[in-house]
């Protein structure tokens, strides 16, 4: 049977060292595999989410009351050329009380039901019952031209995790309060539940409730200011464009310009800009992952270099006799390089298996956000190839230290 090359065959004479070295390399390599695959997977997912969003333009306003006169603003926007739907959203943290329990912190989102569903992506829409069973689809009856004197349906939708965690069922009543106290509060009937998008939502995001905008405005003091003047506030207004305008970046920017002209005091941004910003953030994160990976690989490289140097010391007479015989330096260097490549290669394969295995294990048996993130991991062949080449390159670099030491051995002293 043909034996492997001598340098590789020699590894069996220091099996434990070789196994430990390969194992250390594998652990060092698995970290970049995990970081880059999960990190890039999450970033890609978020970008995809943004790109597949059901709206193209967002209007937002910083400050206490955000966008003022949300219902009228929506009417104006709906009359604007190329605008299909405008959906105001008010997000406020409130407290939930139910059957003597509470306060339970909840992120409440106030929306105009039919406008809200019109600005959801197909994936998001699948998470909600349609039409939204909140009554008053345009939220105009209760709002009643800013009087808030119309009849309210007093209905609310809860996220599935919130309902499940607190044993809340459809048809039951609950109370929402803008403060942590049970009174004053408003009673709502649970009209349904909605799913949580497959994204990295924290507990607050997962514990969400959806109700008509006017109900939330009244509950939280965003309907009128203390002096009684109408505020009708929202945080953002999401604007969906009609037809081909939605898919043409130039047209989206043009409409955004028109809207900005109408409301110069609000921030108008397009989703394209948001995607670009998210892509920049993802690139920065990728750089951070690469930096962390470099540290891990550098530690692996140093360990490999140390082991190879230790090998040169322990194999001093064998190396010295080769040099005395006249074995060329390039062959000694190649011997060291082959050992380093072999160990790096085994470490690389082990690291890839370990990294992929760890991600798969987290995706299968992990919990919460960790599991969701692991499930989004992308094992990019280009990235893995580059990682592999880097590891082998670093292995060769490590071998140069050992080669240098081997070529500097005092031959006649060692062979004395």
């Amino acid at each position, binding site marked *: 049977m043909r034996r492997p090359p*001598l340098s590789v*065959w*020699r590894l069996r*004479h220091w099996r434990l060292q070789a196994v430990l070295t390969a194992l250390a390399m594998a652990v060092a390599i698995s970290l970049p595999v995990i970081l880059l695959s999960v990190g890039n997977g999450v970033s890609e997912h978020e970008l995809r989410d943004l790109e597949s969003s059901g709206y193209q333009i967002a209007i937002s306003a910083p400050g206490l009351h955000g966008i003022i006169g949300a219902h009228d603003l929506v009417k104006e926007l709906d009359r604007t050329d190329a605008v299909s739907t405008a959906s105001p959203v008010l997000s406020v943290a409130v407290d939930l009380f139910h059957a003597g329990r509470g306060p339970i912190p909840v992120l409440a989102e106030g929306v105009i039901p039919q406008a809200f569903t019109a600005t959801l992506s197909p994936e998001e829409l699948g998470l909600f019952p349609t039409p939204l069973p909140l009554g008053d689809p345009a939220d105009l009856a209760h709002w009643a031209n800013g009087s808030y004197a119309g009849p309210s349906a007093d209905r609310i939708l809860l996220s599935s995790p919130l309902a499940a965690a607190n044993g809340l069922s459809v048809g039951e009543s609950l109370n929402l309060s803008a403060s942590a106290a049970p009174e004053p509060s408003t009673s709502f009937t649970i009209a349904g539940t909605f799913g949580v998008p497959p994204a990295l939502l924290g507990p607050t995001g997962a514990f969400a409730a959806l109700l008509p905008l006017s109900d939330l405005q009244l509950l939280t003091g965003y309907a009128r200011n203390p002096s009684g003047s109408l505020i009708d506030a929202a945080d953002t207004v999401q604007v969906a464009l009609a037809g081909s305008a939605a898919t043409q970046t130039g047209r989206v920017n043009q409409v955004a310009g028109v809207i900005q002209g109408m409301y110069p005091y609000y921030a108008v941004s397009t989703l394209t800009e948001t995607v670009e910003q998210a892509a920049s953030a993802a690139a920065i994160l990728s750089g951070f992952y690469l930096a962390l990976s470099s540290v891990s690989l550098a530690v692996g490289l140093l360990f490999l270099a140390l082991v190879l140097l230790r090998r040169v010391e322990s194999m001093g*007479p*064998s190396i*010295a*006799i*080769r*040099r*005395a*015989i*006249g*074995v*060329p*330096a390039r*062959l000694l260097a190649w011997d060291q390089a082959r050992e380093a490549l072999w160990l790096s290669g085994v470490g690389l394969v082990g690291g890839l298996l370990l990294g992929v295995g760890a991600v798969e294990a987290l995706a299968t048996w992990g919990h919460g956000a960790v599991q969701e993130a692991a499930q989004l991991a992308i094992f990019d062949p280009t990235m893995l190839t580059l990682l592999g080449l880097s590891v082998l390159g670093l292995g060769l670099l490590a071998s140069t230290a050992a080669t240098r030491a081997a070529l500097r051995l005092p*031959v*006649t002293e060692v*062979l*004395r």
Partner: protein
Amino acid sequence: MAVSARGVSKRFHPGGPEEVRALNQVSLEVSPGEFISVEGPSGGGKTTLLNVLGLLERPTEGVLIWNGRDTASLSERERSRLRLTGVGFIFQRFFLVPTLTARENVELPQRALGRPAVERRRRAEELLAQVGLSHRLDAYPHQLSGGEEQRVAVARALANRPGLLLADEPTGELDRANTESVLDLLVGLHRSTGASVVLVTHNPTVSARAERHLSMVDGEIVADSRSP
């Protein structure tokens, strides 16, 4: 192989407080096919002389001529190449590579020359047969006796058909029977290959097998005689 040392000195740590003058103005002609023994007390410069003759050390002063070529101007690579093709080293402590079998140890110098595997293998088996180790081809050094190890080392030294064999106390770690056996082998190979042999020893019995006898003290050759 003709080697000529003219006024060769070798100093270690020259100019420092720990300077050691290992060779002092040594002149020596090694003619092709000569069998020379070098005797002398420890620290007399015998091993350093072998290292200088075998191009492992550069002389601090003097000239070393190899087959008519001054070695002073040779690069390390050229010196390595000359060692590989022209010199066979035999050491007191054998210095076989422990991770290689007897055959692989003998193949080692041939591998470095880039000889084909089949040729290497045939040559190694032929040499190991000459030293009486046909049955130990695949044994590792730790599986061999001291005498067997030294015979493998002799076979390795002859692998590339060198013109000069340099043996530093080759029987120093062997018992009497193995000493005789290795000496017989060296003398026989010297005759059959025609290589020059320079053998360092403390043992007068070993020295007696040589044709020419040098005696070194304090880095100088103090006696140079031939067997009658």
